[in-house]
């Protein structure tokens, strides 16, 4: 599944004209797409120097910051949508970040690799950690320090007072609504504070 397909799927979840904060915005492609196709405004947060420069090249507002240091730059409810796409699994302070996401945004959209996708389960049944397209690293060098399943996130959201507005899996660019915990390589959740 290309990055572009995921962007299209995610972009559909963002209401046109939204004020958007994209945590771990990478090269700014999604924010540029949201700006051009859906008249959204806002900021991206990115740590990597090269990606920050690519955002500036795209004319996307980017703020260079380590997400582990929190979102103190932003006031409560200052965004319509906060995106946290393929970022959560890299962060040490997962719960704090999720709460911060819910604090600064009226809605949050999170995506992460689904550890319960069936090839991963198969691999673990064979006794080995999975190395797949969605989790391409060996256990000893993976930046994905928080692996979770589709079902796990539902529990965490519940514990942190988040109401799930929409959830589905994504695999090969297709939305997976049937048994997403088994059938999808990526989990997507849209939520708000209860």
């Amino acid at each position: 599944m290309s990055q572009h397909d995921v962007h299209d799927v995610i972009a559909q979840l963002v209401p046109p004209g939204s004020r958007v904060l994209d945590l771990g915005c990478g090269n700014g492609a999604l924010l540029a797409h949201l700006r051009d196709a859906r008249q959204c405004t806002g900021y991206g947060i990115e740590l990597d120097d090269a990606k920050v420069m690519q955002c500036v090249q795209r004319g996307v507002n980017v703020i260079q910051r380590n997400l582990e240091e929190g979102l103190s730059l932003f006031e409560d409810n200052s965004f319509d949508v906060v995106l946290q796409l393929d970022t959560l699994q890299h962060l040490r302070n997962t719960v704090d970040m999720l709460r911060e996401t819910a604090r600064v945004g009226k809605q949050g959209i999170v995506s992460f690799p689904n550890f319960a996708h069936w090839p991963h389960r198969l691999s673990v049944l064979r006794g080995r950690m999975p190395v797949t397209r969605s989790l391409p690293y060996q256990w000893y060098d993976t930046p994905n320090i928080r692996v979770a399943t589709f079902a796990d996130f539902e529990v965490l959201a519940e514990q942190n007072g988040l109401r799930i507005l929409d959830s589905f899996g994504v695999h090969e660019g297709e939305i997976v609504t049937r048994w997403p915990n088994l059938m999808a390589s990526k989990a997507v959740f849209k939520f708000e504070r209860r």
Partner: protein
Amino acid sequence: MHFEAPLPLQSGAVLKDYTLVYETYGQLNADRSNAVLVCHALNASHHVAGVHADAQGHPLPKSEGWWDNLIGPGKPLDTKRFFVIGINNPGSCFGSTGPMHTNPDTGQPYGADFPVVTVEDWVNAQARLLDQLGISQLAAVLGGSLGGMQALSWTLQHPQRVRHCVAVATAPNLSAQNIAFNEVARQAIVTDPDFHQGHFYAHGVVPRRGLRVARMIGHITYLSDDVMEEKFGRELVGRTLGDAPNYSTQDIEFQVESYLRYQGDKFSDYFDANTYLLITRALDYFDPARLHGGDLAAAMGKALAKFLVISFTTDWRFSPARSREIVKALVDNRHDVSYAEIDAPHGHDAFLLDDPRYHGVVRAYFERIAQELQSAQSPLTTSQGQPLRVSV
């Protein structure tokens, strides 16, 4: 450029009959939309880029402008696309009216009587010069350190006249520690017996000792601990590590002492003591949030420009935390802002050095501005999306 109309100053005083020297690079385009003003910091001037030539037109050695690595043809701020302007601020000692010039009221050099000038006063002086050049709106204003303060102030004093602001290694005001360093420097100067209450010109002397110490303390604060360690360590002058020292309290023993004394000597040859006092005071006084009860976000509300803010991780004189205050104030106002925090080892000095990540971001930003200039379809808008009205 000479100005006969007096410049009213923030203090209530006026600067009468003054001259501003400036340099320009590149060509102003037909609709006068590609002008970029570059604001200078403490010891710099209007000579931001390029080299000076001798009478025969040969380039003079070591005459490069102070930001020549950033500004010029094909450089991050490309003078093939932009019309770049450098202006020497009043009160400085590089050609514009300053304390060494004649006070029209007395016929004597101003000396200590040169009126206190602020960042806001400089911006107003620069704006008058742009009026004379027929530039009603800047594509961008760019500055580092004290120059960054001027760039920020431009967006508040003349919001309609600035489309982009690039503020590098700067702060929304000076911290107590920063003012303290300035005060040590000023005390070094005013307690030098050759200072003569600022009227040393009449005595044919220069308060060299004071200027030296002022520059030495400045230099310490412009470098990071790591860079000093790497540059000098505990190296001794004329001996190898492990050799016994001279056991002298006044000889130069360590390389770092030699470096500081050299920098101090060089500085005292060309810099004016009264200018040093004036410029450090301008730094101290800058505080756009003051009129808003200390609320920087309220102060920045006036700005219409889009911003690029850059800081350097090892800069402890104008630390990243101070730049993040600026970013937060802009974000609170929903202004367009990008922020790069460059992990450079060189401390405050990094803003004058050639770091590919830093220069890459500046280049990318100015390329975007150049694209805006070219695209006839997209009219110029403020960060709120309203069309910019140009007032002349």
